[in-house]
């Protein structure tokens, strides 16, 4: 067997890695190039913390949308993460493998459904339900969080399922041998061993929630005001970009790209927070 030169393989892989990372960098640069000049000219006060968004009269305040984005993402994570991880644990630990093998692809089907379909289901079913049971316009922060929570389930469930199945059986046997119940084994051994995979699933799920465009536009109502209750209609940063990019020209377009930059920074903060929070909680217990 001719041995492919180890060096050439290394170089090939490095080339692939750098082209992939190069591509991703290109997008980040593209967003920053288009939006940075606007960001510097307008400055934080009139952009990030102003709360009137009216491009026609040159007002570009995105504070209400920043608040809305954080609330919607938080809502989606409160629904998606615990539900997703519970389903993953249940499928791997408490259900026969044959059942899991059927259920997992069907759950992943949720990932294949276009978000515009979720949007329509939200407008035609979820919003009227919220309006009749809780009042308000129906198209609201609650509706957006619920729909996003459902949409990130496949990401969180399938990656967590893989992380949990990857935990070697010997870990579980060791714990059973010490008389632990299955749940104690899961809590004390399995989840800790699968922790990095589960964190990855939560982070990717959150990324998907923050990045979702179409479904959020259709169910959130898109009113530009700071939500005082979950029933208020809100507009997230992402929705704002998608809503107006089709018609935006000149400074308005630059403002939307600047919103993209803000979004990028928000995601960075959320990712670091998620990583730190989980690490601290876990080490806290060990300490």
């Amino acid at each position: 067997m001719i041995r492919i030169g180890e060096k050439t393989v290394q170089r090939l892989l490095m080339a692939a890695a750098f082209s992939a990372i190069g591509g991703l960098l290109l997008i980040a640069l593209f967003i920053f190039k288009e939006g940075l000049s606007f960001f510097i000219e307008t400055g934080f006060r009139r952009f990030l913390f102003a709360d009137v968004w009216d491009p026609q009269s040159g007002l570009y305040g995105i504070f209400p949308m920043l608040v809305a984005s954080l609330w919607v993402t938080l809502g989606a994570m409160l629904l998606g993460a615990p539900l997703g991880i519970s389903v993953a644990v249940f499928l791997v630990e408490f259900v026969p493998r044959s059942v899991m093998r059927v259920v997992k692809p069907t759950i992943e089907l949720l990932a294949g459904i276009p978000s515009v379909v979720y949007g329509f289901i939200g407008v035609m079913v979820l919003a009227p339900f919220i309006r009749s049971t809780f009042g308000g316009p129906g198209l609201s922060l609650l509706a957006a969080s619920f729909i996003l929570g459902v949409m990130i389930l496949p990401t969180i469930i399938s990656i967590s399922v893989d992380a949990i199945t990857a935990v070697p059986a010997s870990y579980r046997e060791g714990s059973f041998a010490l008389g632990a119940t299955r749940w104690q084994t899961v809590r004390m051994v399995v989840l800790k061993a699968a922790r990095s995979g589960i964190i990855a699933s939560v982070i990717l799920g959150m990324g998907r929630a923050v990045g979702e465009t179409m479904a959020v536009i259709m169910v959130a109502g898109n009113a530009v005001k700071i939500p005082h209750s979950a029933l208020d209609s809100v507009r997230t940063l992402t929705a704002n970009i998608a809503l107006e990019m089709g018609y935006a020209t000149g400074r308005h377009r630059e403002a939307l790209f600047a919103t993209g930059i803000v979004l990028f920074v928000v995601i960075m903060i959320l990712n670091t927070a998620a990583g730190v929070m989980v690490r601290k909680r876990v080490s806290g217990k060990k300490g």
Partner: protein
Amino acid sequence: MRLSPRLTQAFVVSLLGLATAVTLVILIFVIVFILRKGLPAIDMEFLFTKPQDMGRAGGILPTIVASVLLPLIAVAIAAPLGVSTAVYLTEYTRESRVTRLIRFGADCLAGIPSILFGLFGFIFFVTILQMGWSLLSGGLTLALMILPTIIRTTEEAIRAVPNSYREVSTSLGATRFRTTAKVVLPNALPGIVTGIMLGVGRSIGETAAVIFTAGSSLRMPSSIFDSARTMSVHFYILAREGLSSEKAYGTAAVLIISVLAVNMVAYGLMNRFIRKRS
């Protein structure tokens, strides 16, 4: 009030079961909602003819072809690139600030809204590189969109492979590449397939980014340089421009059935592969 372990176990398991039941109910509700509205529209003519009258009549064959080609191109680009990047980050470099920075960058890009990917694709691939609205521009843009997910899931899958396998393979005289190809990747396959399937799902369901890059021409694509409209974009236009909700949900129903079929086939293949080995 400390519950006995047996009681907490029963309580927690029923809670987890409830969570699963809720998820499955939502899943079934979404599927039934779409199929109930969409199945009546599906017949031979709907599946095998071209759309007429702005999609109010005729079939959706070109969109089915586009929905097969586009994710294929996206995954054909993103899977090798993503897996190689993940292998490079885990097997070929030491965990350092640089690898952590790359991983962090990938996580953040996984959160960028698809509309910005679409605009990037429009300006970079469509205009600057003169590729025009085409399946290639769309495929490249989608590849960049699903790359972070594939890189991250592959990395997690590789990291889950026990180190003892690497040591055994190395002690038997395998080079690092052979160890990766023959022992690490085959055992990380489930995680990799999951990442790719999520990528396929995302690229099939994407609308905003695709409209700006692959375009939304209704003609049958004859090469990857032709513009084409995927089923998701077709649903997007039919439903949002209020042309025909019956045809729109028919398209969505066909989409769901094909995605479910693809998922089942992919997992069937992978499970057969794994059962043979362990």
